[in-house]
């Protein structure tokens, strides 16, 4: 089976398994609606904390509230996409520990697709909805001359950001093949990354910004392309074309995450953990 064949097989298995979980979730509509509403409150308070900050100041790191909300909305929505699509992969460590990964390996479908779709939690849409609401508010409140390019950049950022965060999830899962108890390290990069990107890059130390631009390129989720939309200077004085880099960065992240996943799975199959 070639790479393309594998991808098709993986997506098919993913669709089958996720579909089954969605059907079973929707069998209890009221309970589902309550959970999503609760989730909206949890994630909503996250933004309330930022509103509280802005009740005390007018700008943070030189950014106004609508600008920070724009960053927040982009970060939370892309993260929400990734978390919904592939967040279950974060449980890989416990699957390795209790041996249930073996049961996935005897099925005729790529393991990553099975792990990602397992217990597909539709309730995670609450993060997505909350992020989209904040983003909607930001777009309405921003004082920006919306050109067609800027408008088109918003969905591009969301998709590429979702892909970049997904790659981080996969790489984090791959690390759990080696260290099964280390799921919190993944949280530092996924949840931590999401939190980081909610604030302007001007707030953070240079070293940290360099790290999330060149080492773990989270800056391309929103900071760099959003700087173009907002007409702000790019972090680290990156060149103008950097705003169009997110698709390339997303592809590169996927490639690295894919390699990491394969290496992790190979380790598992040769050590049995």
């Amino acid at each position, binding site marked *: 089976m070639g790479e393309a064949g594998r991808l098709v097989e993986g997506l098919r298995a993913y669709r089958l398994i996720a579909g089954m979980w969605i059907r079973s979730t929707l069998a209890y509509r009221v309970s589902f609606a309550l959970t999503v509403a609760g989730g909206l409150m949890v994630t909503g308070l996250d933004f309330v904390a930022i509103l509280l900050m802005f009740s005390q100041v007018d700008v943070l790191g030189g950014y106004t509230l609508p600008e920070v909300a724009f960053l927040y909305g982009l970060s939370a929505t892309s993260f929400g996409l990734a978390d919904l699509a592939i967040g279950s992969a974060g449980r890989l460590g416990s699957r390795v520990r209790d041996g249930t990964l073996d049961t996935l*390996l005897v099925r005729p479908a790529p393991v990553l697709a099975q792990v990602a779709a397992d217990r597909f939690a539709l309730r995670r849409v609450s993060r997505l909805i909350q992020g989209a609401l904040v983003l909607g508010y930001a777009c309405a409140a921003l004082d920006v001359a919306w050109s067609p390019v800027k408008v088109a950049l918003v969905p591009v950022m969301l998709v590429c950001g979702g892909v970049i965060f997904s790659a981080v999830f996969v790489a984090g899962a791959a690390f759990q093949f080696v260290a099964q108890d280390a799921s919190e390290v993944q949280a530092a990069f996924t949840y931590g990354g999401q939190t980081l990107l909610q604030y302007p890059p001007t707030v953070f130390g240079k070293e940290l910004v360099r790290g999330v631009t060149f080492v773990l390129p989270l800056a391309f989720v929103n900071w760099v392309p959003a700087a173009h939309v907002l007409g702000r200077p790019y972090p680290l004085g990156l060149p103008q074309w950097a705003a169009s880099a997110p698709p390339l960065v997303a592809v590169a992240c996927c490639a690295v995450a894919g390699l990491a996943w394969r290496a992790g799975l190979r380790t598992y199959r040769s050590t049995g953990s």
Partner: protein
Amino acid sequence: MSKGVTVSEGVTVSEGVPVPESAFIEVDRVEKVFDVRRRTGFLRRELRRVRAVDAISFTVARGEMVGYIGPNGAGKSTTIKMLTGILTPSGGRLRVAGIDPSRERSRLAHRIGVVFGQRTTLWWDLPLIDSYRLMHRMYRIPDGRYRENLDRLVELLDLSALLDVPVRQLSLGQRMRGDVAAALLHDPEVLYLDEPTIGLDVVSKARVREFLRELNSERGTTVLLTTHDLQDIEQLCSRVMVIDHGRLVYDGALAGLHEAGESERTLVVDLARELPPVDVGEAARVVRVEGPRQWLAFPASASAAPLVARIAAEYPLVDLSVREPDIEAVIARMLSTTTDAPNSPPERETDREADRETVVPGPGNS
């Protein structure tokens, strides 16, 4: 979709590669070496190299039903994991239906069924039927075939009342039956069972065994099962392979194993009060006394009924139970009595321990 096609008697072709019927599963000097890190101090680690499976060779013909037994940690599960493609062997050659399991895991998956006794392959939180529907799609089972198989399995394994119950609410025996059905929906040619009766009650055990017997005789499915329960083997398998310390130490008929082991069953009797050891002549001998409870050993081949009747007639019997010989005991006896086992390289007796574990000083920190 790689069903083998019979081209001449005794040989099938699996995508161009001929698979002899007599070596449907082929294991040739397969090994599996693990590096185990062990903490020996605060920051010191020791790296141990453990040969979980040590140059094992055997073949299984299509339609055979083979028991694979051995003490805990002997390498049974490791072998099964290599045969199913979960683990990659460290050395040797392995073929199942002409497929190299570790390299073509997904292709092999269509042709094998696997049941892990201790963990389910079913989706824990969902009704049983959802798992089956998913298998249907995932294995691309043709609709007619799926319905036919499902109806048959539901009937034989008595699952009709359980289909809408979430798997986590099933009892162990019910879940095991559900797992067996799930492993067979796609008509696998080989069925691996890892401890299929562990923890089951007597009725469930009997039902699972009965089903496996029929499956093997009527459908010709090749079955390889690991177990701790000698009765599984007695009632199901004509051939037994015994593995110990990663090596195959016996491969042959069950009768031979029993002879080699001269196994005994144990009758545990609770008497009304403390009494001197029960005397029933040659029929049994008392091996242990603890207060009013006594343990009597008698040959596994003999019936317990006359013995029980005699004790009940002569002693104030309150309660009793019969314990089957455990496999460890049989194997231990066998190992101490047999000197000639198949597949045993000459150096086996002398330095088995020595070559199994090699201590390598490892790096200090993680």
